[in-house]
């Protein structure tokens, strides 16, 4: 009885979809194809309601850099940036992401963000499984706070867990990347020798 209550329409939302059904008064729309903007590129993906964003990124879009580790929101490995916020893609339904701007580790790497070089320089990874999540979280921090204090870095990174215990290195890397970014902003060359 419940399912008859509202009308379901297949609709493409977000990237110039074709059919946007508006039905009577009680119109509620259930999407099953979503338009995602990932790293500046638009994708149209058919999704099932229970698919997480992490699943769609890695299994449907081939963006395997976003890792799922705990799968319960507790480790930060699956972090992506959505409309400026660092969020957990394992706890996000892909069906709710249409029209959202999503940045993944691939986008950050492609843009040659100074974090990448700093992470390599400071050997921030051992097994490396947690690293994409750390980098993405750090990127979100630097987007908001170009000059974070050590306390602020700790506070922002506290939801990323590393089984290999690489924590101290991250702080140095993030500070260094922040400095490079500030140089860039100031119009400097911004690259270390």
């Amino acid at each position, binding site marked *: 009885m419940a399912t008859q209550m509202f009308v379901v329409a297949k609709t493409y939302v977000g990237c110039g979809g074709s059919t946007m059904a508006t039905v009577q008064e009680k119109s509620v729309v259930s999407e099953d194809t979503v338009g995602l903007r990932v790293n500046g590129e638009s994708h149209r993906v058919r999704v099932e309601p229970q698919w997480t964003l992490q699943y769609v990124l890695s299994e449907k879009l081939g963006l395997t850099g976003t890792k799922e580790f705990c799968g*319960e929101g507790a480790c930060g490995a699956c972090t992506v940036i959505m409309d400026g916020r660092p969020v957990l893609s394992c706890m996000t339904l892909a069906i*709710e992401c249409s029209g959202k701007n999503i940045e993944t580790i691939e986008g950050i790497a492609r843009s040659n963000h100074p974090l990448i070089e700093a992470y390599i320089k400071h050997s921030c990874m051992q097994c490396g499984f947690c690293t994409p999540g750390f980098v993405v979280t750090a990127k979100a921090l630097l987007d908001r706070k170009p000059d974070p204090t050590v306390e602020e870095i700790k506070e922002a990174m506290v939801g990323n867990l590393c089984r290999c215990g690489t924590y101290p290195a991250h702080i140095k890397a993030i500070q260094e990347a922040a400095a490079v970014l500030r140089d860039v902003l100031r119009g400097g060359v911004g690259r270390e020798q």
Partner: protein
Amino acid sequence: MKTFRHVSARSIEEATSILRESGGKARIIAGGTDLLGEMRDGILPEAGYPEILVNIKDIPGLDYVREEGDRLVVGALTRLEDLATNETVKSGYPALGEAARRTASPHIREMGTVAGNICQNNRCWYYWVPNNAFYCLRKGGKACYALTGDARYHSIFGAARVGATACTRACPNSIDMPDYLSKIREGDPAAAAEILLKTNPLPAITGRVCPHWCEGDCARGEFDEPVSIREVERFLGDQVLNEPEGFYEPPHRSTGRRVAVIGSGPAGLSAAHYLRQAGHWVTVFERMPEAGGLLVYGIPPYRLPRDVVRRQIDALEDTGIEFVLNTEIDREGFEELTRTYDAVFVAAGAWKETEAGIAGEQCLVPGTEFLRRTYEQPQDVAGKTVGVIGGGNTAIDVARSLLRLGARPVIFYRRTKDEMPALDEEIRKAEEEGVRFEFLTLPVGAGQETEGVELTCCRMELGELDESGRPRPVRVEGSEYAVHCDLVIKAIVEKPDYSFLPADFVDGRGRLRLDETGHSLRRGVLAGGDFVTGPATVAEAIAAGREAAKYIEAYLVGKARVDDETAPVCTFGQRFDGSCLEPSTRVEVPALSLTEKLRSLTVEETGSLDRRAVEAEAGRCFNCGCVAVSSSDLAPALIALGAKIRTSQRVIDAEDFFSVGVDTSTVLGPGEMVLEVEVPRPGTDARSAFLKFALRKSIDFPIVNCAAAVSTDGGLVKSARICLNSVYGAPVRATAAERYLVGKTVDEATAAEAADAVLADALPLLNNRYKIQIARTLVKRVVLACGPGAGPGAG
């Protein structure tokens, strides 16, 4: 994750109407950090999964934090991070800002919403373990694992009842055991008996002969030994028979309606009792010279003394039920009853012998007849070998009676002990007492001899499973052999006798034609008990009688049947004494020695517990409930600050917003949605603070958290509000400490005193006593943080 339908609501009305119309099948998804965790791991019982998720994130206008006049208003969709970093909140409402800042991890705060946080499901790591590894009480299972296991995310203020307990669920009469056991613990056995009598009018009888499914399912059984519920029942049953006044009384009003009950077994007695209590005149017709049916003529007196049955019948008679004995109702008599009474209940039991299919069957004595005769005039079978055919309770009763008459009984059963339908407890007793068993043996022929009977038996082996799920016994070719017995009794299934009913009450295959409720034969003519089900148990017959009484009552007063027995759900504050969690053994039931037992057919084999023993048993009851905790970090801050929650239907004080339930932790009704949180601006003389103790600072639920808001006047406390969370199924407001603080200055000593007041009535579990110490320290510090010594906006 299981699939579901996903709907994005675009307005509050849309969201609430879907929720309402879904009949509880839809859930809101906001940030999803709580809900998806629950859904991803397959932790919910099958029925608990939402079929529809209503996404509310796209509803515009629900994401804001601003001051309006003298209060702060926060939209339901506000992210926790935005609350934590909001300057107005940090400076003006420090307890709230700090609570938000200390919630979960940065990522969860970026996703999680204010409404989602206060609506999050209660925490318990047994409950949240993936794939239902602990199918606990809250999910409809038997036991709560936290009572005796690791309990860091669990209550120190007692359990909350979530649905019926395992014992109640197992009982055909849904007796509320924990409730009446609590009354015994409180020293009020009369109140306990009253609860018992609500659904079982014959506790002295069931207290002796019931197979006690309740004990089989008792959660305590998973820990050490089940509570001796039946013995307690027997004690209360004897109490009410010793002093029936106040328990079995004539009704206060009379309806003038007359009901005839055919059969005075437990089904008939139960219906008669409940109908009489409803004010009707009840007449019970019985063909035997004594009332009680199987209680008198079936169950042997060493298990159920006749005197108990008699006193039970007397008590019922004293309420005004009329018993007409020695009166067999035939077809004509039945027609007359239906004409002269307003309603008739047929509870004539199952007495008719069935054919065993043995050649020469006429020389076998039916088991029920033997038991009946044994009661009226015991046979002289001393020293004789008596064969008993069958594997049910009647066979065991016959064999054990034979032993007491000095005979040597041998039970012939065609399957093995494992398949015997008799109760295990009875089989064990029969073995102990020396009944011989011939398993996998089928008597196929009997021949009368001058001295006794020659029985031809055939050996059997077990084959494929049959419809009943038991292996089918198959004859071993050529295995026939002869046994000589002095007497052979067949104790195989008895059937109800429908011959006195009008022909149209029975279908072509000889089955009763009952209506869709399974109770009525015709308007105002109902049937129940063994008469409908075939041989069952006293407890089930009582249940059938009570159920029939409800239908008859509804018929007589012309209203729909009322169901007043729905399991208690979510009662608040069902507390228990933690000392019951220490391992203990059941009290020993006094019993006769083997030789004493075998000496007499009529001396009861077990004795009653005394009051002390009964209290000890009642003290062993866990009073099963859920001890998961509400662990929202915002909740205590909101309660301390005197916030209100505005929903789509009403405005609720934050303090009244939380409740303990199976899948819910709030008082929200179906289709109700949180829209906004309003916090009054604290006065200039007020300070607030929030503290959280968690295992890891990075990301963890609180072991305990605490918020306080204190306003002072000239250094003295004017008013204080203190709230703890993660210590009970809902936030716990520390009113005792608040009262204590008024009029005092806040200092080390008063803060410590306040903390002691909060924890004075804590009821820790077996393994979380340490939480009391943590809570005490947090309360003290949070109070101090609101005191004069602390800087502005302490946190």
